[in-house]
C-alpha cells in the first residue's frame, strides 16, 4: 500500500514570545514537526508491512525540509516539499488546493491519506476535510486507533460523546487526533539512513497550478486588521506572601 502523509511544520508554541507591542517574536523560535503529524506517522508505522511505502508531503518554505527529514527518520520512504514564493500566505482553502494538485499529479496511486488532527499553531483542523472533499474521498476525523487484517482496515473515531468503529474504504483520509507518548523515536541508524534519502522539491509550475489558485491570491479569507488587545482594566494587587492571609481573602471573596 501507498500511504500519503500530509504534514506541517510549526513553530514550537511552547517557545513563542511577544515583544512589548504584542507582536510575535518568531526569530529564534525553533520549528518542529507538528506533534499530531508525528502521531499520524506513528499510526501508519503500526499497521504497515514491508511492501508498504510512506510518502511524506508538506507545503512550506525551504526550512520545512527539516520536518520532512524528521519524517524520513521516523519511517517515511519518500518526501516531497511543495515550495514556491507564490504559496506564501495561503489560507486553508489555497493550501488544500495545492495539496490536491500534488496528489492528483504526483501520487494518484495512493491507498490512504493520513493527516494530523490540527496544526498546533493554527488549530483550525480544516485542511483534512477540505482536501478530502477536493479529492472526493471520505474523511475520518478524530481517529484514535487503527487496525488491519486480511479483510481490510478499521478505524476508531472519538467524537467526544460517541466512539465509532468504521470500515475504511480504499482511498480514505484519516485525521489522527491522539498518539502514543511512548512511540518510537528515531535511532542513530535511522537518522543516518534518512540523511541519505532525497527530499524532492516541487514548485507551483511543476504542480500545474495557476497564480490565482495558490497562496495569498488563491485564498478566500483575508486578515482585515489585527491588534494586540491591551486592557485598561484596573486590577488590585494583593500581597500573597503569607499564604494563609491570601487563602482567607479568597474564601471571603467568594462567599
Amino acid at each position, binding site marked *: 500500500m501507498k500511504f500519503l502523509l500530509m504534514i506541517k511544520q510549526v513553530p514550537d508554541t511552547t517557545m513563542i514570545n511577544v515583544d512589548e507591542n504584542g507582536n510575535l517574536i518568531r526569530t529564534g523560535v525553533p520549528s518542529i514537526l507538528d506533534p499530531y503529524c508525528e502521531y499520524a506517522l506513528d499510526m501508519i508505522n503500526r499497521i504497515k508491512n514491508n511492501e508498504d511505502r510512506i510518502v511524506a508531503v508538506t507545503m512550506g518554505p525551504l526550512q520545512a525540509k527539516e520536518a520532512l527529514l524528521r519524517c524520513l527518520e521516523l519511517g517515511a520512504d519518500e518526501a516531497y516539499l511543495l515550495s514556491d514564493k507564490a504559496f506564501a500566505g495561503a489560507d486553508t482553502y489555497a493550501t488544500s488546493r495545492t495539496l490536491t494538485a500534488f496528489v492528483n499529479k504526483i501520487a494518484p496511486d495512493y491507498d490512504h491519506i493520513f493527516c494530523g488532527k490540527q496544526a498546533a499553531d493554527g*488549530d483550525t483542523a480544516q485542511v483534512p476535510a*477540505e482536501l478530502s472533499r477536493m479529492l472526493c474521498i*471520505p474523511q475520518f476525523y*478524530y481517529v484514535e486507533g487503527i487496525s488491519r487484517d486480511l479483510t481490510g482496515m478499521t478505524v476508531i473515531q472519538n467524537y467526544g*460523546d460517541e466512539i465509532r*468503529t468504521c470500515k475504511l*474504504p480504499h482511498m480514505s483520509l484519516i485525521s489522527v487526533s491522539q498518539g502514543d507518548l511512548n512511540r518510537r523515536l528515531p535511532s542513530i541508524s535511522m537518522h543516518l539512513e534518512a540523511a541519505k534519502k532525497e527530499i524532492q522539491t516541487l514548485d507551483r509550475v511543476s504542480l500545474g497550478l495557476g497564480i490565482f489558485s495558490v497562496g495569498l491570491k488563491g485564498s*478566500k479569507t483575508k*486578515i482585515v486588521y489585527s491588534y494586540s488587545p491591551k486592557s485598561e482594566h484596573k486590577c488590585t494587587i494583593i500581597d500573597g506572601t503569607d499564604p494563609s492571609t491570601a487563602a482567607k481573602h479568597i474564601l471571603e471573596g467568594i462567599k
Partner: protein
Amino acid sequence: MSDCSTCSSGGSCGTNNENGLPPGMLQQYNLNQSTAEDNLVWIETSIIDDKLKVVDVSIELIGKLKNISDSRTIGIIIGDNDVKMLYDDIFAYGIDTLYHVKDKTLATYHPEAYADAIADVANRINPAVILIGGTSRGREVAPRVAAILATGLTADCTELSMNGRALLMTRPAFGGNIIATISCSNFPQMATVRPGTFPMPQPQIGRKGTVMYRQATNNDLKDIISSERKKVIESDISKAKILISLGKGIKKESIAVAERIAAKIGASVSCSRALVDKGWMPQNRQVGQSGRNVAPDVYIAFGISGSIQHKAGIGSAKKIIAVNTDPDAPIKDLCDEFILGNADQILAEMDKMLNS
C-alpha cells in the same frame, strides 16, 4: 446605435451597453453584485439523555445573527421524522424558514452526506453567511461544506459583526497575543463558533415559521461497524458559578487539593491547556480558544499566565482573581484581583481552613 428596449424614448436615452440598461445603471444600482442575502445556520441535533435535542450552540448562533443582521435566518436540519418535534423550538428561537433534509439513513451522522446536504441547501437559497457550531461534528462538516462551495471558512470565531452583507470574523491569531479580524472574499461567508461564545437567546413561544423538505443528495454512506454513545460526564465548567482553574504553575498534588476545595464550596475545577497537554486534566475541563468558554461569577486562576488563547475563554467571567508568582503575568490585564503568591501554598491553606 441599436434600439433601446428599456425605455420608451426609442433609443434617445443613449444606452449603449450590452445589458440594454441606461448608462451608469449597473454602477448606480450595483447590479453586477451577488444577490446573496440570507443567513444559514446548521441546526445540529444530538441525543442528550436519550432524547433528541438541538445542540445549544446552534441556538446561540441564531441569537447572534438576529442581533447583527436584518436578513432572514434560515435553518437546515438533517434527520428523519423524529426531528419534527424540534420544529417549534427552532422557530421560537428565531428561525424563519427551516429546511429539513429528511432521510432515514441520515438519522445517523455522516460527515460527507451532511456536508452535501448543507451545500445543496446553500446552493438553493444563496445565503450571504453560513454559521456552524464549533462542536466535534461541526468542525468536521464545515470545512467540507466550504470546499464544496469553494469559499473561505474561519474557525472558532470569538466575535462576529456585519458591515452590510460583509461578515467580519474575529479570532485570536496563532501563537501570540494577536486578535485578527478576518473577512471572506466570496459568498457565502462561513464561520464556526465554539459553544458558549455567545449567549442563549430568549425563546418566543408560539413563534411560527415555514418548513421546506429536501431530499438527500448523497447516498454514499460509510460503513459504521459500531457506535457507542458515551455519557459525557459534564462537570460542565461552562455552567459553573465558581471556577478554580489550574495552570502549569501548580504541582500535580494540588489538583486533588483543588478538587476537595471545589466540593466544599460548590465550585468546579477547570484548567489551562498546559495541564491537558501534560495529561493531568481531561480536555473537557480546558478553558480557552480550543477549550470551553466559561462565564462564572468568580474565576480563580492558579498558576495560569494568561495567554491570549486562555483569555479568550474567560471574557464573560464576572470577577477574575489570579494567583501568580510573576508580577508581570499577562493575566493581570484581565483580572480584578491579582494575588502575588504561591499557588500551591495558598490552595493548601484554603483546604486547611475549609477542613477546620
